[in-house]
């Protein structure tokens, strides 16, 4: 019986892993197979024409980069502050527990709710109209739990000996934070940031009412009434018109570019993550 379970359980685990990897590779294969024919230099550098059936996705790509760049700039200080409060400054277990509950609740909020919240608060109440800044802020709020939890876990995993050695030398808590805790924890911030940004890059619901339009926008010059084009919203609209073969080709091409963007983010940050990991391992 024990011998059988020693065989069956690993086989089941292997099958699940194979299934998950197979689905991922299948998805990537289909998107690449259908999207590659649409990809060329003009597709990347031209702006949208003829309701998406002609032209390219230049401003959609730029708009998506603006949205995730803004989200990144907003989420890094917020997540750092929250993680430090949770892992370093909060003395009471009850405070840490409440902060944890807040993060998990925030993580559970459906993305459309963020969209409605942004629409009511920023678009209507602040009268910003559709704005790239609203989109960036909402995406930052959405990925805040992922980034914060990754950073908290990294801080918790820091060898206690470093903190004791620094405290023993007479360093103040703020000096320990800046000289030990943060430099040793950046890998967590980057890992969480990448996971979050990869999710943010593909989100449509939070930005469709608040930050993005289908056509007629380029680089924003202000905050109010300054929407951007974006890849997820572009894919969302084209998908509704995909019976047209010209549109379908652009749709798969856009999906492939979005996938490549997320993949590129991970690849670009990999050397930094590895270096930080090596340094942290000591």
């Amino acid at each position, binding site marked *: 019986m024990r011998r059988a379970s020693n065989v069956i359980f690993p086989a089941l685990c292997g099958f699940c892993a194979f299934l998950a990897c197979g689905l991922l590779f299948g998805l990537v294969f289909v998107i690449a197979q259908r999207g590659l024919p649409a990809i060329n230099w003009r597709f990347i550098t031209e702006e949208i024409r003829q309701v998406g059936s002609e032209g390219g996705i230049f401003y959609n790509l730029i708009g998506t980069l603006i949205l995730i760049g803004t989200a990144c700039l907003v989420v890094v200080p917020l997540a750092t502050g929250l993680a430090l409060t949770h892992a370093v400054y909060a003395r009471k277990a009850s405070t840490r527990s409440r902060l944890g509950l807040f993060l998990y609740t925030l993580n559970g909020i459906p993305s459309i709710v963020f969209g409605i919240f942004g629409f009511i608060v920023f678009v209507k109440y602040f009268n910003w109209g559709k704005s790239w800044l609203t989109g960036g802020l909402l995406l930052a709020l959405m990925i805040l739990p992922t980034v914060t939890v990754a950073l908290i876990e990294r801080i918790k995993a820091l060898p206690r*000996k470093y903190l*004791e050695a*620094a405290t023993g*030398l*007479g*360093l103040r808590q703020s000096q320990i934070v800046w000289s*030990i805790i943060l430099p040793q924890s950046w890998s967590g911030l980057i890992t969480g940031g990448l996971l979050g940004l990869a999710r943010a890059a593909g989100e449509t619901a939070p930005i469709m009412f608040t930050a993005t339009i289908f056509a007629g926008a380029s680089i924003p010059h202000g905050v109010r009434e300054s929407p951007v084009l974006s890849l997820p919203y572009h894919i969302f609209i084209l998908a509704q018109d995909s019976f047209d073969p010209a549109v379908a080709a652009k749709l798969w091409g856009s999906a492939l570019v979005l996938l490549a963007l997320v993949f590129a983010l991970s690849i670009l940050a990999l050397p930094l993550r590895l270096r930080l990991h090596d340094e942290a391992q000591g």
Partner: protein
Amino acid sequence: MKPKDNCLLDESVSTAPAREIFRISNLSVVARGKSILRNVNAVIKANQVFGIIGPSGAGKSTLLRCLNRLSDLTPELEVTGSIEYRGRSINAPGIDADALRASTGFLFQQPVIFPTSIYKNVIFGLRHIRRGLSFAQLRETAESALREAALWEEVKVRLHDSALTLSVGQQQRLCLARVLATQPDVILMDEPTSALDPKSTAAIEELILQLKARHTIVLVTHNVPQARRVTDWLACLCLRDGAGEIAESACCDAVLTNSQCREVIEYLNHG
């Protein structure tokens, strides 16, 4: 190694009328309802190597950590009683625990090396504690600390190499140099040679004997021959009803050769 001065059994008639650095009175430590130390009393005098020996679990390291309030890092520890550092209670309102720790360097059992260069490890504490030092001053202090820790000759040509490339014995001396660079008044050592080979142990012991000319040293050790070689005064903690109490505190030779306490004799015989 230099022979140590003889001393008498009773502290009150000790040979040197040295200044008091630490006065520990009725110190007790409890963690989650379990008593770790009970009614510890001791006086540590300037330029003395004060040894603390005793069986595992007797609270030697806890006592050492109470001296510079590193015990604050463990919130479940409840510390009662009084510790005076240079005549002032270390728990008095207005006492800056970080300043206290800067004056009392701590050397851990295992060398704690930051994953950076040898030079940056040496100046790590110094550049935070004494801000505004010039590059030349930092460099000069680092060299002086490394010389004092007898490591300069071994690392002077590779100061910017990773400190992780050093042997464990060299790493421990690097930690000592990092402490010395901050120019502490007292150095607290928690079994600093327990992870070292005999050669590195001898080097650290030699350093302890040299350093006591300028610093007061409190040394926790399991190694009785080491206590004999380097300490001036020895406190032996023993377990009584699960808590550490000072069974005997006297001149090193008196504790090791002429102890009147049964628990101490048992510890020395059976370790």
